């Protein structure tokens, strides 16, 4: 098992620490009473976790695809359940994304959460530990434990601190995710029966028959497609986003959706490569539908939060598109897109929370024409909106462009079909931006039923105060990443490079090994067949 691992040689067990700090923090939070103390405690714990995770970036060895910072403890030998955690170039970025986003989740809840602060901080810190656990587990059973451990606190976050339709949204979220994970559990048990281990790298190297791979692939894909979410399993997302408190939306968008993409990369592709290749046309088609349907639905929303929620479906469609193009540009683009979506969409949800605290409405019409009164707010709204639709010089452009390059390289038609998604993204974000910054016409339309709140049209916004220091700081922090990744993504791409190459190697090796059991694979995988294919005249135009 050691050939896959590089053991942690830092002075402290870093991966366990970044799980333990929030866990211990969560338990200690139960003993605090004062709301202010709780907030500061939450901030301190998440910041400490973030600081503790920094060596993952500075000490990461990007020349190897092996898992690093590994800790291995025998736990339940009879079951083959070891406590084994480690990161490679794919998961390390997602761990960092998680630890960096969490302090912002505390900050954006500062004045938003008005009740049950103790429980809120507890749930928030508990979720952080579980999410990190998902990304660092190298044992499928451990992965599943953390996966399920996330479910309940996230459910609570929506059900307790959510909006008016929180019951509906939280139960829908629970049912979708839980139903998906049942299939995943079946898959990991089947893998255990077949390969006799829960150890993930060993499972990746074990050869499986094509028919078995298909079932494994289907089981995992349903669980991850719900999480991403991919059309047609996306309907829980807008409901959950709209009802969740700001911190819940940020966690959901920035980290939890990434678990779907991560699952595809960690389970579906390396364990069932032959099945994955067979499924490529279907998954590319579903990704394209997600991109376009997400964008189209976003265009019609009048609720800002719903708009961003649907935009997430589109953005995550680019992630799955990149993953299932199965080439280096595509998978790198997909991983980077996951990070970028975490930054940009997280920031947009924070912005929505900020305006909701001021006007108590998420309607575009009520929140229109803010330009004159909240210039700073509008500045950040502009930056993150542009980033959201892939404006050059911002983070999302790099990742979307990599995915597009991958698509045009492999199937130009797929690339061409993804373009409407990019157009729609520009359309709904610019529409949102235009109305929120300048438009007055919608404000008048809402005069009637908003009178009791006393805010309508332009004059109603005069009392609004612009960003305070806490809000501004949060957004500046994220904006730095928008431009850093937008202009200099090389450090992040370098970190994932070798791991992505290794993953592609695994897929190719898997198809050659398993190819014999499937005629189409055998044809394209053997060198002779490749020669035959090459010898055919290239299509002339």
């Amino acid at each position, binding site marked *: 098992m050691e050939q896959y691992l590089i053991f942690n040689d830092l002075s402290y067990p870093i991966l366990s620490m970044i799980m333990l700090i929030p866990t211990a923090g969560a338990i200690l939070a139960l003993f605090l009473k004062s709301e202010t103390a709780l907030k500061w405690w939450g901030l301190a714990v998440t910041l400490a976790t973030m600081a503790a995770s920094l060596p993952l970036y500075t000490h990461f060895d990007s020349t190897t695809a092996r898992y690093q910072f590994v800790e291995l403890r025998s736990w339940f030998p009879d079951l083959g359940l070891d406590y084994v955690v480690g990161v490679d170039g794919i998961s390390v970025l997602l761990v960092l994304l998680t630890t960096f986003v969490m302090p912002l989740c505390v900050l954006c809840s500062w004045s938003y959460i008005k009740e049950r602060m103790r429980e809120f901080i507890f749930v928030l810190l508990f979720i952080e530990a579980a999410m990190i656990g998902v990304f660092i587990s190298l044992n499928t059973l451990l992965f599943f434990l953390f996966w399920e451990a996330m479910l309940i606190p996230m459910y609570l976050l929506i059900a307790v601190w959510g909006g008016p339709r929180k019951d509906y949204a939280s139960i829908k979220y629970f049912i979708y995710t839980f139903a998906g994970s049942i299939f995943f559990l079946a898959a990991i048990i089947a893998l255990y029966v077949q390969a006799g281990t829960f150890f993930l790298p060993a499972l990746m190297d074990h050869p499986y028959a094509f028919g078995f791979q298909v079932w494994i692939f289907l089981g995992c894909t349903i669980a991850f497609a719900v999480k991403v979410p991919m059309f047609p399993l996306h309907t829980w997302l807008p409901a959950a986003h709209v009802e969740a408190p700001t911190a819940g939306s940020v966690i959901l968008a920035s980290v939890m959706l990434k678990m779907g993409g991560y699952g595809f990369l960690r389970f579906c592709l390396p364990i069932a490569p032959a099945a994955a290749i067979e499924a490529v046309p279907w998954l590319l088609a579903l990704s394209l539908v997600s991109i376009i349907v997400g964008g189209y639905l976003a265009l019609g929303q009048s609720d800002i939060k719903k708009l961003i929620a649907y935009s997430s479906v589109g953005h995550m469609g680019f992630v799955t598109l990149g993953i299932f193009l199965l080439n280096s540009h595509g998978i790198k683009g997909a991983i980077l897109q996951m990070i970028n979506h975490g930054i940009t969409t997280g920031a947009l949800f924070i912005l929505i929370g900020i305006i909701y605290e001021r006007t108590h409405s998420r309607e575009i019409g009520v929140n229109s024409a803010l330009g004159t009164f909240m210039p700073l707010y509008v500045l950040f709204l502009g930056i993150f909106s*542009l980033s959201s639709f892939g*404006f*050059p*010089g911002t983070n999302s452009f*790099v990742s979307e*462009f*990599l995915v*597009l*390059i991958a*698509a*045009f*390289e492999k199937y*130009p038609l797929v*690339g*061409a079909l993804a*373009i*409407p998604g*990019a*157009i729609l*993204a*520009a*359309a709904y974000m*610019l529409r949102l931006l*235009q109305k929120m910054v*300048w*438009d007055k016409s919608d404000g008048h339309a809402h005069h009637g039923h908003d009178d009791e709140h006393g805010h309508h049209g332009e004059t109603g916004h005069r009392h609004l105060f612009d960003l305070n220091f806490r809000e501004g700081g949060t957004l500046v922090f994220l904006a730095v990443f928008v431009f850093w990744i937008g*202009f*200099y*993504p*090389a450090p992040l*791409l370098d970190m994932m490079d070798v791991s992505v190459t290794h993953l592609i190697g695994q897929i190719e090796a898997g198809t050659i090994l398993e190819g014999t059991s499937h005629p189409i694979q055998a044809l394209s995988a053997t060198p002779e067949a490749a020669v035959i294919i090459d010898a055919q005249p290239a299509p002339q*135009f």
Partner: protein
Amino acid sequence: MEPFVSAKILLATVIPMVTALLVMISGNKPNLRESFSTIGAVLTFASVMALAPGVLRGETYSLTLVTLYPGISVSFVLDPLGLLFAGTASFLWILASIYCIGYMRGLNEHAQTRFYICYAVSVGAAMGAAFSGSLFTLYLFYEIVSIFTYPLVMHHQDEEGYDGARKYIIYLMFTSKAFLLPAMALVYVLAGTLDFGAGISAGIFPADADRLLAGIAYLLCLFGFAKAGIMPLHNWLPDAMVAPTPVSALLHAVVVVKVGVFSICRVMLSVFGVDLLSVTGLGLFTAYLVSFTIVAASVIALTKTNLKARLAYSTVSQLSYIVLGVAMLTPHAVTGGLLHIANHAFAKITLFFAAGAIFVASGKKDISELGGLGWRMPVTMIAFGLASLSMIGAPPVSGFVTKWYLALGAMDINNMILLGVLLISSLLNAGYFVPIFHKAFFGRPLPADAAATGSLERRPLVLLMVVPLFITAVISVLIGVYPEMFLNTIALMVGL
């Protein structure tokens, strides 16, 4: 020759951005604010001119700021084509920023700080486009221009302003997302890089690149740069005329539309290369495509009675001359086309300046109201007349030189159709410009104005507008009489 690596070529992009910041800070002190704006313009022009001697000696400057991904970088290059565009645009910014003071104060416009900020950023981004060393950099600045001109178009924030601006951003964003984005991806897939090639013939594609995909990428670029106003994607331009006139003048005659045309020229010459375009026949196809725009836009211009609308359609028509020249792919024609970047800029900004000055001084927008105005605003109308001659292509004004080279180019490739297009469009140009001039001096004034006499050009604020437009008109004539400076610059590019 190896390009010099020099950070100096960033100055022309950075100075306007800094100017925008200073304008923002000094927002509540109009005099300071507008001094910053004007000084920024002067410094920008100076920074471009500081590099000119080197370029004219045949040197090129380059700088790669960051590499995003192998082959995709933010990089800058200064070559003769970039110098021509950057020099013209930054010089006209000086005059425009003086003109702005007169216009914006004369009409007591609101949100002037926002106006000056966006104005400066737009010019800075256009400088960045002129100095771009890669398709990605060009795209980056092209998009910044789109975003920052949006508030300028909807400046009045009335129904008409919002509608025009919406159309503007929809046209520009749609085309850049729908066409430019896939074009860039295709170019990257085919060539493995987005950096511009050296020279204008070879392009950046390997010899065995798929011709069909390259052709598709080319067409996507041609329509993707919708700022160039090639039909059928020209329709945003007339509606964008709801903007204040200094915007129409500098941005919609020089900066914005020229960024579009410049981008197309740049992509034709430095990405696809003359060789590929002539082998595939795409050059000639482009020439016919823009010929239609030249004639059709002129015909539409004839039907417009609003002065700015007529100028807008004239712009659509004239921009296509530039693309036509490059598309004919002969040294003479390319010279004519590139020269027209400068020629059209000086002439068209004069015309827009004049339209704005007339509006501020007399409140008139429609051609039918101009009767007899020439006697009350003689300098303005004479400048207008000179610029019109340039549009028509009559000597001794600069437009003549353009037409001369374009005609030579058409004869080089023995294409009588294109030569015919040039002649017909000249007639049409005369058809819609001469009546304006005639009306201004020999037309009957409106009954309401019949009694009014005396010069309208003596008010100080109007004078701030008349002087710049007089200068640009004179320069138009000077270029017409003495085109050597520009010709020498272009000769370095096309090797004539």
